[in-house]
């Protein structure tokens, strides 16, 4: 019973968030830009190759997503799973959970301060989404970024 109530409350919250973020993004109706901010909550690097950062290493980063104009609490989360291809260059897949669906982006990242990924697709509202995700670092500690989704359709 308690689990059912929790589920119902979570569903209502998601619906509310979907409604709120829907004011800013309207990908289902065509091109749109979604601007949110992120705060890194964990970064794990798994040293799989030679000791130290190098090709083959895997890095998993988790972020909380915010839209401070709507609410102070996180509106979603993102997980980056990156594999280093050189000492600095990594190939990443990002899964960004937003209230009205999930967006998946991927590509190479050289500088974590500023990078651009291709939007590969999504679920629900962002089904078959295309476009770019640009991230720009705004603070180093804690690591905060602006995430800018430019969806083309």
């Amino acid at each position, binding site marked *: 019973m308690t689990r059912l109530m929790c589920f119902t409350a979570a569903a209502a919250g998601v619906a509310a968030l979907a409604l709120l973020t829907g004011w800013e993004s309207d990908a289902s109706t065509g091109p749109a830009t979604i601007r949110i901010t992120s705060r890194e909550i964990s970064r794990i690097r798994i040293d799989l190759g030679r000791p130290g950062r190098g090709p083959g290493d895997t890095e998993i980063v988790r972020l909380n997503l915010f839209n401070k104009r709507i609410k102070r609490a996180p509106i979603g989360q993102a997980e980056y799973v990156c594999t280093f291809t050189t000492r600095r260059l990594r190939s990443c897949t990002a899964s960004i959970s937003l209230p009205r669906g999930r967006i998946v982006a991927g590509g190479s990242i050289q500088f974590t*301060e*500023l990078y*651009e990924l291709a939007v590969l697709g999504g679920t629900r509202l962002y089904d078959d989404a295309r476009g770019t995700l*640009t991230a*720009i670092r705004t603070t180093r500690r804690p690591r905060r970024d602006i995430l800018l989704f430019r969806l083309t359709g």
Partner: protein
Amino acid sequence: MKSASLSARMIAASVVLSLLVAASFAVLISAVSTLDDARDREAHSKDVTSAIVGVEKLVIDLEAGLRGFVVSNNLRLRSPYTQAHAELPGRLDALERLVADDAAQLGRARKLRTAIQIYVRDYANPILQIAEENPPAARSLVADEEGRRHTQLINARFSDLRAAEGTVAKENAASAKTQSRRAIIVAISALVACALLIVLFGLYLARSIARPVRAAATASSRLAQGDLSVRLAEDGPGEVSELSKAFNRMASELERSREDLETQNVRLRESERRKSELVTIVSHELRTPLASVLGFTSLLLNRDLEQRDQQRYLEIVDLQARRLSVLLNDFLDVENLEEGRLEFARQLLDMGTVVDEQVQLFSGQSSRHTLDVELQEKPLPVRGDPNRLAQVVGNLLSNAIKYSPEGGTVKVVGERDEEFVRVSVRDQGVGIPEELQKRVFGKFFRGDAGASGIPGSGLGLTIARSVVEAHGGRMSFKSVVGKGSVFSLELPLAAD
């Protein structure tokens, strides 16, 4: 309906002209005012464009400062950014104030502000920080691309704003041009209308004043040349009409005066002719008895005549002297009557009595005549001079006897009605030919009496009619040649 006076018409025309001029100037002022507004709007558009350019310059400074710092990592090269960043809010505020009256432009200006703010917040400031920490990252292609995207958006906003303002400026310029053209058209139209009105006014004045004055001058010349029948048309404005009427009155008066003069002239000529005739008649009438007197006195003085002849000659002299005396008295009476010097008594008298007395007086004068009196009513009261009225009746009786040489009955009738007393004397004499009847009451007119040996001066009827008319009455007669005449007099009935 009385025609409006010329001065009223001129004042009305002047008022209309003034109103037209005032209306034209009002339209012109309005057009110039609109033109000023259009120019103000055009100037305002230039101000807006200038403000847009100012903001654009600051955005370029932002970008240049950012790029300079990112490329060189030299803080000195960042100063344009810092300066522009400080100035931008004020400039954007100024721009928004300038376009505040245009909601669409204000919206565009706000979108530009948002784009610039996003550029600064989401790109420029982070990039500067990244450039400090990791310059290669700030110089990466991604950074370039992101910067390009932001600046493209800002440029698009600038383009929208400039294009819209350009359209507004163009519309304002076109409006100013239209207003300018309209003002010129209005000014020219007003000028032409005023000129036309002035010409029409001049034509009207020429028609209303010059033409009537010219006509009056021509008519005056004709009048001066003796054509008194000339008249002016009395239409036209008040004063002109009055002038024409006055001229026509003057011409009519002159014409009447001339006719009077001509009549008087005719009368004078007639009078002169009659005077000459009078002198001739008088000299003739006086000469005849005077010659008798002189002739018989000469006989009496120079010849030794018998007592009987002396007696007969003396009787003739006496008769002719009396005849002269009567003639002179008649002359004097006519003269006095014509001059109005004869005074009449105004006493109540009975014309019946007067008639009776005169009939008695004349009844013994001719044995061949019978005087028959018929007084239908008595009394026949009139107010007048008994001696003069007796003279009139006596004259009529005398004529009736004289002009019926074969004798007969002379009938005298006296009657009255509600207004008049009428006395008529009918004879059975020779009558008066119709062609001579008009002259019966003329002085010295005797018809064929002179040739027929009928005595008389030809003044009796003249005196009689003058006396009757002086009493407020009238005389008339009817006559048929060979059958006789009837002479009547009417006098106003006096209250009993």
